[in-house]
């Protein structure tokens, strides 16, 4: 931990979730002059956006904005952060909360210099979570290159094995502590902002789209990793079954979203994400073609220009219609898509190298609730109230609106500081 706790604070703001929304809330409040604590369950800050290759509509790298934000954190003594930490219990009320936090061991302490000797010594590989299991990483690993704080972690699965001992022996800086135990501690804060973000909707639940059954069907967030230069294929867009370069790709919109059986709401970002991802494939594989199957293309306001830009590429086509069925051509690994083209009024059967499901966003609070007095809407998004909420745990939104709501949430959190 960069900033170890020095006695319990008497006032301050707790921000739960260290993604772009949480970081923004924390920094905006800290730069007004207030003390802020960020709690993040991952070993690094950055959250979901750290996994994205580019942002729409500028097609710029998320790491650029994260780097500035990390610089702001480094320079500001008002910000303290706790990684590998989750909130266990909240009691009290606005103006005076007692929060119990639990830190999970990463088995690497702040002595870590990121020299990489532990990973060199480690002979066990695990599925790379950051890349959604599309490749493997050593069990002693840096979650990703831009990880902040820049520190290795040991996967708990190797604990008690010779691999763990080899890692420890390789470390020259006494940074590996295999006896690290979970740690519970408390904080007193005046306001709490919930910013735990979203999870990709589990596409396996959408039976007819065959995710998990047909190898060359992936989700949009997996596509981000596949296209990223630091991803499992170093940015080569190839299909999972045989590593063949993808030339003919389809994007299936509303995979889970706008569907009473799955997510009844619209996930806001998927239309734009798919439009953006057509640019990935078109750039990586110049001969490629992309088709987007959609119900409505939701490119509000300034995003309309981006849609037009993508539409101007004649190798990207748009079909209005909901995909009914996805199957595998067993001999080739190709993906067969059945869709009702609602404008032409006919059923289409098309074949693709790979299909990307524009899987929706589910609030993280669908899985893990706020351990305190929070209110939810019918889809488990946190309604901002006594416990404030911001970003994608509050409503489905893009990065820019996350920044907006996060900045507003910082003000609301500050307003609570006066209360007792």
């Amino acid at each position, binding site marked *: 931990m960069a900033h170890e706790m020095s006695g319990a604070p008497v006032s301050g703001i707790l921000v739960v979730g260290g993604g772009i929304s949480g970081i923004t809330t924390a920094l905006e409040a800290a730069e007004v002059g207030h003390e802020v604590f960020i709690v993040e369950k991952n070993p690094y800050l950055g959250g979901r956006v750290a996994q994205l290759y580019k942002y729409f509509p500028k097609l710029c790298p998320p790491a650029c904005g994260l780097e500035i934000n990390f610089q702001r954190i480094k320079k500001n003594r008002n910000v303290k952060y706790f990684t590998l930490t989750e909130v266990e219990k909240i009691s009290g009320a606005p103006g005076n909360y007692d929060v119990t936090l639990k830190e999970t061991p990463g088995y690497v302490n702040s002595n870590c210099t990121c020299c990489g000797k532990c990973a060199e010594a480690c002979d066990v590989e695990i599925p790379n979570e950051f890349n959604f299991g599309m490749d493997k990483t050593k069990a002693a690993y840096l979650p990703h290159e831009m990880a902040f704080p820049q520190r290795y972690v040991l996967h708990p699965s190797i604990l008690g094995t010779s691999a763990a001992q080899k890692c420890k022996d390789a470390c020259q800086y006494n940074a590996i502590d295999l006896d690290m135990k979970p740690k519970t501690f408390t904080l007193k804060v005046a306001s709490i902002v919930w910013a735990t973000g979203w999870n990709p909707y589990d596409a396996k639940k959408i039976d007819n789209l065959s995710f998990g059954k047909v190898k060359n069907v992936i989700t949009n967030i997996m596509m981000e990793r596949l296209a990223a230069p630091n991803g499992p294929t170093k940015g080569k867009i190839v299909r999972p079954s045989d590593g063949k370069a993808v030339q003919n790709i389809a994007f299936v919109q509303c995979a889970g979203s706008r569907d009473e059986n799955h997510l009844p709401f619209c996930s806001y970002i998927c239309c734009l994400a798919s439009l953006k991802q057509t640019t990935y494939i078109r750039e990586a594989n110049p001969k490629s073609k992309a088709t987007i199957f959609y119900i409505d293309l939701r490119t509000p306001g300034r995003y309309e220009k981006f849609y037009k830009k993508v539409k101007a590429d004649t190798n990207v086509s748009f079909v209005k219609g909901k995909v009914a069925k996805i199957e595998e051509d067993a001999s080739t690994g190709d993906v067969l898509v059945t869709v009702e083209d*609602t404008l032409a009024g006919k059923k289409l059967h098309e074949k693709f190298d790979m299909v990307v499901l524009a899987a929706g966003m589910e609030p993280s609070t669908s899985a893990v609730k706020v351990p305190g007095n929070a209110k939810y809407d019918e889809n488990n998004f946190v309604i901002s109230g006594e416990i404030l909420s911001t970003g994608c745990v509050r409503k489905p939104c893009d990065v820019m609106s996350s920044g907006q709501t996060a900045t507003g949430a910082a003000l609301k959190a500050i307003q609570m500081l006066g209360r007792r």
Partner: protein
Amino acid sequence: MEKKLGVYICGGCSIGEGLDLEKLSLVATKEYKVPICKTHPALCGEEGVSLINQDIETEGVNTIVIAACSGRVKYDVFDFGPSNIVERVNVREQVVWSHDWTKQVQVKTKDAEGKEEVKAETKPNEDTQMLGEDYIRMGIVKANKTSLPEPFLEEFTKNILVIGGGITGLTAAIEAANTGYDVTIVEKNSQLGGYAARQRKQIPTKAPYSELEPANIQEKIKEISNHPRITIKTGTEIARISGAPGMFDVSFKQAGTKTKWDVPPPRKKEEETGEAKTEEPVELPADQIKCEDILTKDTDAERFGVVVVAAGGRPADPSEFEHLGYGKFANVITNVMMEDAAAKGKIIRPSDGKEARTVAFIQSPGLNGDDSDFPYCSSVTSMISLKQAKYVREDYTDGKAFIFYKHMRTPGVYENFYKSMQNDEGIFLTRGEVKGVTENADKSLTVEVDDTMIGENIAVNVDMVVLATGMVPETRFDPVINLAYRQGPAFKDLELFDGYCDSNYICFPYETRRTGVYTAGNVRQTMTNGECIEDATGAALKAIQCLESTNRGMAVHPRSGDTSFPEFFFQRCTQCKRCTEECPFGALDDDEKGTPKPNPTRCRRCGTCMGACPERIISFKNYHVDMIGSMVKAINVPDEDEEKYRIVAFVCENDAGPALDMAGLNKLKFSADIRFIPVRCLGSVNTIWIADAMSKGMDGVLLIGCKYGDDYQCHFVKGSELCNKRMDNVAETLGKLRLEPVRVQQVQFSIDEYNKIPEVIDKFVKVIEGVGFNPMKGF
């Protein structure tokens, strides 16, 4: 402060394996006579840090040069408090992790029988060692040339000015006032409330987002009218805002009038980049009042610390879409006209006041497959049509509403609202292309629609047609803020966003190019009432943050917390105006002679002025022309017969710098002929540094900065672009000196492209090898 240097060299993370630490120490102790120089196998450990702390305490070391890892890591470990200067020299990522430690050399030996044989022998890589030593030299020079910044502090006010009394402005004012700040809200109309006060109902703002809500703007107006911290000025406009954050002097005027405090037209065609243009006097029409110069002080002005702009917009005119009949047929109206009518009472058609029981809403004007919605609309217009369709149903039990759309845009939670409207049996939603609207004898209208989802072309007879038109931001017509700035009265970059004063930064949605002036609501993007409220709350925070930072003498985004600011040595100023013109944030105003007047609280500390100044009279305490120039000169340039090239690279510390670290972390290897010097922004690169490098005998200069163009990534907006323009002049100068222009090049680089670092560098090294050694070497 009397400096006492200490140089501390770390041997950890392979530094000690790749470099000869003894020799590195000699650079400090012998060449630079640094009194204290120590090495340690793991400087960041407890023992290493206490070694430094001890020297601070007992030896009085106050300027600490740490040759170890990148300054981006272990920043907290190597923080020795605000009164000590710390300079980090990156010999890990940029030396031992990215260069070979050894190299194979062919050595002739004689074997036991005296026969000569050639053997490959592994020797320490002298190029890597030279690289490390140069970085130590540069670090020591930099530490010698830097000093601790002293914040710019004045008598600042903390009052907030909000421009615009619609839902956004009201919210911003209330939120700021409720946080404890005094606010003045200015509205040009005689009433507060804006368009929100003209609504019958509003699009849902809270869960479950399915039903219309009563418009609650009157409650906000009441709250603001009784708020002890809020002053209201209706019927008032801004004549001018002069000054800077913490000390803006605002001249108000009665709306619609002209005063001598209006901002005069710019003195010349304002061009923010390029050479100063000759001034052309602006002819004033006879009836126009002569405006005072921007630097003249209005003694009646009121002082504010920051400004929130919530000026909203004006309804767009859909006349250009002739096939829809607006302006031709009385019963074709816009959604704003519909809202006004609905707020008054039952919906009636304009031609004769007859009840409008069947109404068609047109979402998208396009023909021939163009699926854009109306200009300046957003998803808001989809929702307004749904809302107004509901009005028809509220007013008439047999009412019918048809909505013809290309894409129904109800993103996110607004899907619930769409669904609930779909459940109304009197609302008919069809995707289709509207071919045209025609008027019938009884003034009813026929709407012809093709390509509907039911697979046929239809014609519908309706009482009235409502066009889902957008809202044009006020800033498209009027500067609104009327800044008395030499760079002009309006926001910059408006053309990038069709007149919206929106942020170019996805991560930083409130950033504008006018420090201390934040925008919110429909002037930024078209928004629903709910979105306006959220946006206004964020803008209020940013305004408060700017006040507090200014009051601490600190910069705002992106160098938030920086207390350095540019200082000018005016005796040598030649009034060339380049600094005034090039500052991306309009921080400088020049007087009639052309002497710049600095406004430190407008400054974002990028150093673009410093890069622009041909006289090199602009400097920061901890960043100046002499500092970087001296670092360049500190690089050891080998003689030509050593056959080693030397290249210096100026690197943007925000994106390219971290990318270099990532390249090191990934152990990517590149030429050891190049030395990197981080700069705040390429905009701060003064061409004298290039001259310094060339006259020192260096063979090439590389500039690595952010991408520019419409989707620029430069955190200081224009830095990398300005640098590129200055390079044109450099090429010319090189030509005069008979040096090949290819010796100086700029590349655009993103932070995530670290895997391309070797390629970029080695390519440039090849270019330099192609043109050969700098002929000025050794002179």
